[in-house]
């Protein structure tokens, strides 16, 4: 299996504060990994660095052996759009447009054929039980449904990696289990790698491969 994404001795500083202190991490194609850690341990920072939302202060991140730091702004944007699917804790849906339009947003940004994306998404929406939510606005549906719309948006362009930042943080335990199960299922279905960042031990325990982070370092694998 090919190594898709690799972080090599990555450090990240915000002023004097060191969020990451030399992290080495890699993920293979279609691999599923959980990163567990307490709040402030640096797990989200690592996730966003891997997703190209920020640049490391030191060290490098490689996408299929190409340095992300060598990417131009437009290439990095394309990388985020085509290769990465973000699932955020607070789902970050735009309230002024319908759920369907939220799902189609990455397609519109990337210049994809949105009609094709919509055709592809509808059966998945049915599969996830949110088909009836598509014409509604985010505030008209429940938190669990919002998170499933968020997941649909993340997989709408068939990304190579799903990066999930506390995807169940806002859900009860019943819905949390369902969402994680769903993410793993979709990852297998689309052969996409899956990285789930969580503080919850019960979530992390569902993954055969997991990393534990503390104080900006991976201390246990």
């Amino acid at each position, binding site marked *: 299996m090919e190594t898709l994404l690799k972080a090599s001795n990555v450090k990240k500083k915000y002023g004097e504060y060191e969020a990451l202190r030399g992290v080495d991490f890699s993920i293979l194609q279609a691999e599923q990994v959980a990163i567990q850690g307490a709040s402030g341990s640096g797990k989200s920072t690592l996730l966003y660095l891997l997703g190209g939302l920020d640049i490391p202060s030191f060290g490098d991140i490689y996408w299929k052996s190409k340095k992300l730091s060598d990417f131009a702004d437009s290439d990095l944007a394309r990388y985020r759009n085509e290769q990465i699917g973000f699932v955020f804790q607070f789902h970050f849906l735009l309230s002024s447009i319908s759920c369907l339009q939220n799902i189609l947003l990455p397609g519109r*940004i990337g210049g994809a054929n949105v009609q094709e994306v919509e055709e592809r998404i509808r059966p998945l929406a049915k599969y996830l039980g949110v088909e009836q939510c598509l014409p509604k606005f985010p505030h008209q549906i429940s938190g669990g449904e919002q998170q499933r719309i968020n997941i649909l948006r993340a997989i709408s362009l068939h990304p190579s990696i799903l990066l999930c930042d506390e995807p169940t943080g806002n859900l009860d335990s019943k819905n949390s289990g369902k969402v994680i199960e769903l993410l793993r299922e979709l990852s297998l279905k689309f052969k996409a790698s899956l990285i789930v960042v969580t503080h919850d031990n019960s979530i992390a325990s569902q993954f055969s491969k997991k990393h534990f982070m503390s104080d900006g370092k991976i201390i246990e694998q």
Partner: protein
Amino acid sequence: MSLRVFPSFAKSLFTEKSTFRFVFAVCLGLGFSMSVILCTIGIMDGFDQTLREGLKTTSGDINIYTLHHHAKKSDFEQAFKRSGVIDFAEILQMEAFAVANDISKGGLVKGIEAQKFSSILKNKFSLNEGEIIIGTELAHALKLQQGDSISLVFAGSSESLGGLPRPHVLKVAGVYDFKVYEHNQRFVLMDQRFLQDVTGMTDLINVVTLNLPQDGWDKAMPYLQRVEMLLATLKRDLGRGYSVRPFWKEYATLLEAVKVEKFMVSIVLQLIVVISIFNLLAFIVYLNERKSREIFLMRALGLASRNIHRIWLITGFLIWLLACGLAAIFSKLFGLILWNLEFFKLPGDIYHLGRLKLILSTDDYLLVFGLTFLQILFFIYLGLWKLRRRPILHGLRQEFG
């Protein structure tokens, strides 16, 4: 790419009423600023054109004045034949006092052949012996109306009275608007033969007004250039005893001054546009701050900074387009008000014209709208250059954390 995402982006940006009000105020401000420049240019162009039109009501394209003598009609035949001039009218012109209702005013009497004069000026002047046409201001000053009697007093016209001036009682056949205030105040038209008789200048004239030949080889050339060419030819052919002038010569300095002023004022007034563009810049900064959640999310989903810039440029372009529309409407509205409302009537003794017309050419619109667009581009780039430094993660965390 950015064009396809623009509707979703715009939808998410313009959902709040406050944003709508802000953008409308920006458009209104920008439109108003542009209309101020357009109206200024339009008034100056209008002044120029109206003055020229006014001057043309009593003059052909070129006027020839005898300098030290009176001439006979035949004196011009050779020169006109060589230049191809066929459209001309001879005038006997002299100063006189107009007296009526115990009021007297100085006037410039033009002895014309009504048919020839009407044909040159494309105006219908009808005069019989013993009748005159006077300007509106002169009629007003002498309290005269059509059909009233008026006395004209010419210098040294009565030998029997030892060269003393002798009044001639005439009938006002018409009160005419010569467009230019001074002309309305002074001009008196009367039958040429009658004027020659009463002044003892039989067959003599001292002014010829003429139009450019209709079928000349130079017809494709610009009008002013054709006038200048004919002027030079006539000056050469007629010699020193004549002054050959274009119809606008009387106000040439003023017209030149208006032209220079128009340019300078337009440059200075660009400052108003710059101030309005600051509002546009403030709007972009406002949206960037208020809608940073949406912007950072879109960047996280793969929208490149370059495309965000493009979206702002499209927004700027649409604001500019709307502002241009508003500016055109404001200008038309102002033009109508200027022409119709009594409040905007000008003192003609100061401005030569009683009313100002707003005349705007396509070039004027293109100049003002084009310059504004360039300024908008410059300021948007300046603003975006400042904003693009904020990293996505920092923004996401700040906005969603």
